[in-house]
């Protein structure tokens, strides 16, 4: 025994030395932000099993030496494997219990990360056993300690490498969506295998892989893939768990595999509990010196009670070599009993224990914009104050990391489109909208009848509008789940339509809510009136256009002119000028079709980020002028349509034509909202006459000077497609027959809190664009040769 005590002491010292320093002051936020931060700072507790193992040994030696023939090293081995907390069991239990995040992370993190320690200890002890206790030298102990670091850090590194690879490859899978889940699984598994191959900690590798790649992969892969991955993983995990525990059970019954020794069993049971508690108390005492929020007694109780052993221990004990470790059977029996005990007894009783101790539970609240926003604010505030104080605290590092991430990593690893819209506040907002939209749809609501919409709980404006919607849903009995994650799956329907619907509802939802508000926004009231007018106008236009579509064979290319066009002010282009526009700015619009009539659409709807500053410059109005064709035709006849006007930036000569026809237009400049509504009213009339003329003249112009082949120009970025802030929406290229409805709805949907001036134009724009999309997509369709000019109705 004395002889045994010496190496024991040595090990104790080594153990003490290897206690990992607790890392930064966590200041843990209460709710889980996505990404690394949460897990980074909680790497303490890894050493718990180490200490416990040692203590167990001491006890077990004393108690059972007479009965079981095993040396110190054997017991060390046993101790190392029995003390490892098992992530599977912990997860299964804690997921039900819903303790607060801090606790959960501590215990779960420990179980994940102690794999490294377990593996090292196990291997070290195993090799010591093989070498025989007489041959063990001091350097071997040191090597053991060193290998601890190598194994854990190496495993983490392998995981991170694979995470990087995964994120990078998913960036490019836009066309081949189907392989995304495959990639995720395979690369994660590859990480595991690689680590195993290098005898590093495989669990750590997989964990770090998941941690590292989550943010980027989630942004890159499609919703369907995400869902597929998630549920497959859950299924697999569940299967694996079941199988392991079945194996456990079967081995328990199969008595050839084990030998019973009461002393060992009882002693082990008692001591694992005891020493775990001891270890926890000691370590939290150390940690509390550095923590902002102390871990109090209750937390400690839960931590020590929540250390469940499971499959890992069992697997390791089965792997023991009976030749080297003659006491294997006793160990197996003990392990089985321990596992059973902890899982069954502790697992079952932890829930009532938690309740009884009144442990702080995790508050699962639905995210509100407010909270998200304010959280961000606070983060910034804190970071700033830390700077003032000169203290490089948690927030400072977090900020640094976020900046680094934004600058380099996200750009490298995330898809362009995903990268552009990455903003947490917007994410929350978007999700909330989707949820509202979906619930709205479930209500069977019809947006056009929004006037009659009754959302009874809406007026009860608590801080969380979602709760009212939730209530609605419950009442209506629709089975819609408001779980944010599940919402993703709902969108598995046809994305485009969903998106259209979403935006439609988005706008639609706004209105009723605002209705209850005694809002003083100036565009509140006029919106409805506007809409009705617009709808009429719009429908008339559509009819007309349909006619002209059929009757002519010219193509129309329209460009969604971006800010550059807008900058210049009036876009009074006739077809010719537009043609030039094409010539003049090929780089902007990317056409080769010189003679194409360009429908310059200026949409104030642009929500491109880069146009945000130019939006402010706009004070011209967009007014529909359908006088287009007549003028165009004139021009066509006159100029042979291929003159090159100076770049559209300069007001082309056509304004005079425009002026001619619509003299009142010139004064449009900075008129207020209401004026623009008038203009739209007037426009149809103009359009009527214009159109009638154009019809007749068009017939005659069968082969127009614009002999452009019906090539369609493709706008470089589908302007409307990209303008929708969220990716999946491509502006509705709905089939013709239904175009009247969805575009207008989409229109209505898209109107957010914009001035109503937008709405008339938008609505008109909408169908046009819808058409344009169609024409773009179906080159066969002959497009009518019109030029519709849009001058923006000014609003200021």
């Amino acid at each position: 025994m004395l002889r045994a005590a010496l190496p024991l002491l040595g090990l104790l010292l080594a153990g003490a030395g290897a206690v990992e320093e607790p890392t930064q002051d966590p200041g843990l936020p209460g709710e889980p932000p996505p990404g690394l931060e949460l897990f980074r700072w909680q790497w303490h507790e890894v050493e718990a099993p180490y200490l416990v193992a040692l203590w167990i040994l001491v006890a077990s030696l004393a108690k059972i030496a007479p009965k079981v023939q095993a040396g110190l090293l054997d017991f060390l081995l046993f101790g190392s494997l029995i003390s490892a907390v098992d992530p599977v069991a912990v997860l299964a239990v804690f997921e039900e219990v819903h303790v607060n995040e801090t606790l959960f992370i501590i215990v779960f993190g420990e179980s994940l990360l102690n794999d490294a320690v377990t593996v090292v200890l196990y291997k070290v002890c195993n090799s010591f056993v093989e070498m025989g206790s007489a041959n063990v030298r001091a350097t071997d102990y040191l090597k053991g300690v060193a290998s601890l670091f190598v194994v854990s850090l190496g495993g983490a590194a392998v995981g991170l490498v694979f995470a990087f690879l995964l994120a990078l490859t998913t960036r490019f899978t836009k066309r081949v969506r189907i392989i995304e889940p495959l990639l995720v699984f395979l690369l994660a598994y590859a990480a595991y295998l690689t680590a195993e191959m290098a005898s590093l900690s495989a669990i750590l590798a997989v964990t770090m892989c998941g941690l590292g790649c989550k943010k980027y992969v989630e942004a890159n892969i499609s919703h369907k893939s995400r869902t597929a991955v998630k549920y497959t993983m859950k299924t697999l995990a569940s299967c694996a768990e079941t199988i392991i525990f079945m194996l456990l059970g079967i081995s328990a019954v199969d008595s050839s595999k084990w030998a019973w020794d009461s002393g060992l069993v009882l002693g082990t049971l008692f001591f694992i509990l005891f020493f775990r508690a001891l270890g926890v108390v000691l370590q939290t005492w150390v940690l509390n010196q550095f923590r902002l929020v102390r871990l109090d007694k209750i937390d400690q109780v839960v931590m020590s009670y929540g250390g469940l052993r499971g499959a890992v221990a069992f697997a390791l004990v089965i792997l023991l070599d009976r030749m080297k470790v003659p006491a294997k059977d006793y160990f197996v029996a003990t392990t089985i009993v321990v596992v059973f005990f902890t899982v069954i007894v502790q697992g079952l009783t932890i829930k009532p224990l938690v309740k009884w101790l009144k442990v702080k539970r995790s508050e699962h609240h639905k995210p509100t914009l407010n909270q998200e926003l304010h959280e961000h604010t606070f983060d910034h505030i804190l970071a700033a104050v830390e700077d003032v104080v000169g203290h490089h605290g948690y927030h400072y590092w977090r900020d640094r990391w976020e900046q680094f991430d934004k600058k380099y990593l996200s750009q490298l690893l995330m898809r362009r489109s995903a990268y552009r819209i990455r903003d947490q506040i917007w994410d929350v907002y978007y999700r909330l909208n989707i949820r509202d939209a979906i619930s709205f749809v479930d209500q069977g609501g019809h947006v056009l009848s929004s006037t009659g919409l009754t959302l009874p709980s809406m007026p009860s404006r608590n801080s969380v509008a979602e709760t009212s919607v939730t209530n609605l849903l419950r009442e209506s009995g629709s089975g819609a789940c408001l779980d944010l994650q599940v919402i993703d799956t709902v969108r598995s329907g046809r994305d485009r339509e969903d998106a259209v619907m979403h935006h439609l509802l988005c706008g639609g939802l706004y209105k009723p809510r605002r209705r209850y508000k005694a809002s003083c926004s100036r565009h509140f009231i006029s919106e409805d009136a506007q809409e009705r007018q617009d709808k009429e106008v719009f429908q008339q236009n559509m009819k007309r256009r349909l006619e002209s579509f059929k009757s002519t064979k010219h193509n129309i290319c329209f460009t969604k002119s971006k800010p550059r066009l807008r900058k210049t002010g009036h876009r009074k282009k006739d077809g010719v000028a537009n043609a030039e526009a094409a010539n003049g700015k090929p780089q902007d619009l990317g056409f080769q079709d010189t003679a194409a009539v360009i429908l310059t659409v200026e949409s104030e709807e642009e929500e491109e980020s880069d146009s945000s500053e130019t939006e402010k410059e706009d004070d011209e109005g967009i007014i529909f002028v359908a006088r287009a064709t007549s003028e165009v035709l004139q021009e066509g006849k006159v100029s042979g349509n291929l003159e090159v006007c100076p770049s559209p930036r300069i007001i082309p000569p056509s304004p005079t034509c425009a002026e001619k026809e619509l003299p009142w237009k010139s004064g449009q400049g900075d008129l207020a909202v209401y004026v623009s509504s008038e203009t739209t009213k007037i426009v149809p009339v103009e359009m009527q006459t214009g159109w009638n003329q154009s019809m007749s003249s068009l017939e005659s112009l069968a082969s127009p000077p614009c002999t452009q082949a019906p090539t369609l120009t493709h706008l470089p970025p589908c302007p409307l497609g990209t303008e929708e802030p969220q990716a999946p929406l491509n502006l509705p290229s709905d089939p013709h027959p239904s175009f009247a409805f969805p575009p207008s709805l989409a229109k209505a949907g898209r109107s957010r809190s914009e001035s109503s001036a937008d709405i008339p134009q938008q609505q008109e724009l909408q169908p046009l664009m819808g058409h344009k999309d169609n024409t773009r997509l179906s080159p066969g369709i002959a497009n009518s040769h019109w030029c519709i000019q849009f001058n923006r109705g000014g609003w200021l």
Partner: protein
Amino acid sequence: SQASLVRLHHRFQALDRSKKGYLSRMDLQRIGALAVNPLGDRIIESFFPDGGQQVDFAGFARVLAHFRPVDDEDIGNRDPKQPEPLNSRTNKLRFAFQLYDLDRDGKISRHEMLQVLRLMVGVQVTEEQLESIADRTVQEADEDGDGAVSFLEFTKSLEKMNIEQKMSIRILK
């Protein structure tokens, strides 16, 4: 505590390059990291209550005291007649509220919310999106329908958040 006061004093002196004995806006602006912080200017502003031009050490410490971690024993032993300590939850929230509410009218209007949003949100989000977010935020919090968020509503909307923990800096304990 004593130690942290000493530390703050050192920092104060370090910031006060010209050894005036007080800090002006320039001194605070010289802190590099604040320049890249979207709310940097506002924070600096908050050090100068009532629009003064200088802040002495007492003022400096007073503002920073808002960020002291909350000590549970304090709450128990506090004499209810005394004004609440600066680092209580209410006062922390009030500090944050004042950062939003520039014109000090006791309410965060939609416009002010929009401004803060504009500061904090990246360039990817366009103006209209920002506006809708601002609208929605105000809507969520606003209970009496006045289109602005008063301090009470602000507090209420954040009741679930662990402010004491979030708005504390450990070394100021």
